């Protein structure tokens, strides 16, 4: 069976203003040569530095951003070349839950309308009564009180609003959900409910999920595999349990060592990344992490290391063989 989604060499550029030169801009690649696949029913985690391009990857997949390069195949169809009805049909099957539940909900629409919107757009549950019933079922499924459908987004707390966003995404009956920090605004007991809910829905509908998160405990818990991004590039890919236990790439190790802990301490202590975060406008030659990498050697400046197999089922992009899986 083919993968549900296959992303090859994805590239997305942005222009940002030049200081001092009013009106002029410079371009940089927010996502640079990113390739990965999502299997049917697979939950794939996407973690990495803030600003490394995670949200941008998600926005390219759902069609909210237009990539400058690369190819995305969804169920065998090229997302860039689809148009008209075919495009609309595929779009229903990919839904997004946003990082920011405040600006993604229309403040003037009652919650019931917001949740019903995807059904209207995609012609699901055509009769009004059917739609209302489905809205009620969805609100109950994400744990909102029954009267929520008549209220406005501002009457809900941050966590409750995020559940509205999840209910709306589910309304389209998608095959793939891009979940951008969907539980980071939730308190932990509700987070547990939502994670259990996502796991249940995933199992019941063989849903695929691209789960973008900074919470590595949550990613380890929910995801089958994990992608690690740094400054627009993928630096490591692997099965989550194995990857968190035996990180191959020095950046992944630094990331894991920074996870705040309630009870235990990180093995080997915290790796503090020194050195400047490279300016995306003037990225260093070779490996983009080398300016902050405690394991950098001369070879790292020479060429961009490709994402290559470093152990069974494990990929990493690193030029220094001695740095891989290092434990110090």
């Amino acid at each position, binding site marked *: 069976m083919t993968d549900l989604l296959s992303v090859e060499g994805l590239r997305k550029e942005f222009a940002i203003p030049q200081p001092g030169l009013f009106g002029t801009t410079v371009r940089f690649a927010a996502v640079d040569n990113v390739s990965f696949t999502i299997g049917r029913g697979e939950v794939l985690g996407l973690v990495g530095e*803030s600003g490394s391009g995670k949200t941008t990857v998600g926005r390219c997949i759902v069609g909210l951003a237009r990539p400058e390069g690369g190819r995305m195949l969804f169920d065998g169809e090229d997302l860039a070349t689809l148009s008209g009805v075919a495009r609309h049909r595929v779009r229903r099957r990919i839904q997004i839950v946003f990082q920011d539940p405040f600006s993604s909900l229309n403040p003037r629409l009652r919650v019931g309308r917001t949740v019903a919107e995807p059904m209207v757009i995609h012609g699901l549950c055509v009769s009004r009564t059917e739609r209302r019933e489905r809205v009620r079922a969805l609100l109950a499924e994400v744990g909102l*009180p029954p009267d929520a459908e008549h209220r406005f987004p501002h009457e809900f707390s941050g966590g409750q609003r995020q559940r509205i966003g999840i209910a709306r995404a589910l309304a389209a009956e998608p095959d793939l959900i891009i979940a951008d920090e969907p539980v980071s605004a939730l308190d932990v007991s509700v987070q547990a409910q939502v994670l259990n809910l996502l796991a249940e829905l995933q199992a019941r509908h063989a849903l695929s999920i691209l789960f973008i998160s900074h919470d590595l405990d949550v990613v380890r818990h929910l995801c089958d595999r994990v992608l690690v991004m740094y400054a627009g590039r993928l630096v490591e890919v692997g099965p989550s349990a194995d990857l968190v236990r035996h990180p191959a790439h020095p950046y992944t190790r630094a*990331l894991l060592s920074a996870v705040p802990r309630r009870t235990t301490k990180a093995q080997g202590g915290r790796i503090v990344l020194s050195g400047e975060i490279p300016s995306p406008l003037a990225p260093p030659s070779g490996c983009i992490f080398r300016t902050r990498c405690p394991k950098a050697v001369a070879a790292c400046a020479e060429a961009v290391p490709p994402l290559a197999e470093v152990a069974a089922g494990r990929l990493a992009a690193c030029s220094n063989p001695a740095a891989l899986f290092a434990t110090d």
Partner: protein
Amino acid sequence: MGDTTVLAVENLSVEFRSRRRIVRAVSDVSFTLKAGRTFALVGESGSGKSVTSLAIMRLLAAPAGRITGGSVTLHAPDGPLALTALSERAMRAVRGRQIAMIFQEPMTSLNPLFTVGDQIAEVARHHLGTSRAEAFKGAVALLDRVGIPAAAHRAHAYPHELSGGMRQRAMIAMALACKPLVMIADEPTTALDVTVQAQMLELIRELQDETGMAVLFITHNLGVVAEIASEVAVMYGGQIVERGEAGAIFAAPRHPYTRGLLDSLPPEIDSNMPVRAPLKAIPGSVVDLAALPPGCRFAPRCAWRQPRCETGAIALDADPANRLVRCVRAQEVA
């Protein structure tokens, strides 16, 4: 330094009134912020954490939102100020200058029409009377200090041109622009990756050592609380249900809600639990703040519930170790 009270919240209560309902968002909340220390507020979504901080800042949406009881006192260098009694004009001078706030959602507090550099500079210009050029230079330095790469460029960017984490850092920079006495940070690190989060916590600690700034830190991340807070209050249904030293509470929670909270977390990263093993969520749903039960607000969801829990209000009692717990069976829960 650690024992000087900078801000005292006493028996604070807040209501939202509409024609249809009265939402008792905050009930009888008390705590103090100490110089150079961090106090954390954690708890159920909708339990009143953000409303508590908005009430301190007197930023409740009028006329629906009202402080219905209690007081907030800022112990400024030139004497105590009863914030709950200040005129709106006097309060404006306190906001941003003496108490800075980082909001839960940065997009709602950054103005989309101005560059982040201009917005940060404006704070210093407004409160400290710094010149335009100086203020902008200061803004770039702050953006750099909170770890925004290419800060001199990014100062000219509009909020929508920054990633979520960068916007959050820009908010932190804006809050720090006036070296406030108190910083209220509502989920300040939620949008940040853990390495930047660790840097941010370190930065806050450094500034606290330098300036004695007191911090009220609202978060769902108990790992962060364990790292940064000396004291923590757990809120449920608008009330504090447990308050005390953070490490002690995590090691031995006394309130059934606190215990449920800790039990519902995904296992820590190096655990052996299989993927997607069901988490122990607290059963039931959030209490309706417009229809509060007469007794314990957590009782309907509580495994320790007894008939006496549901008849009258439960007091927040101190135990010998100075832990405050709002539960008649606190000793058994531990």
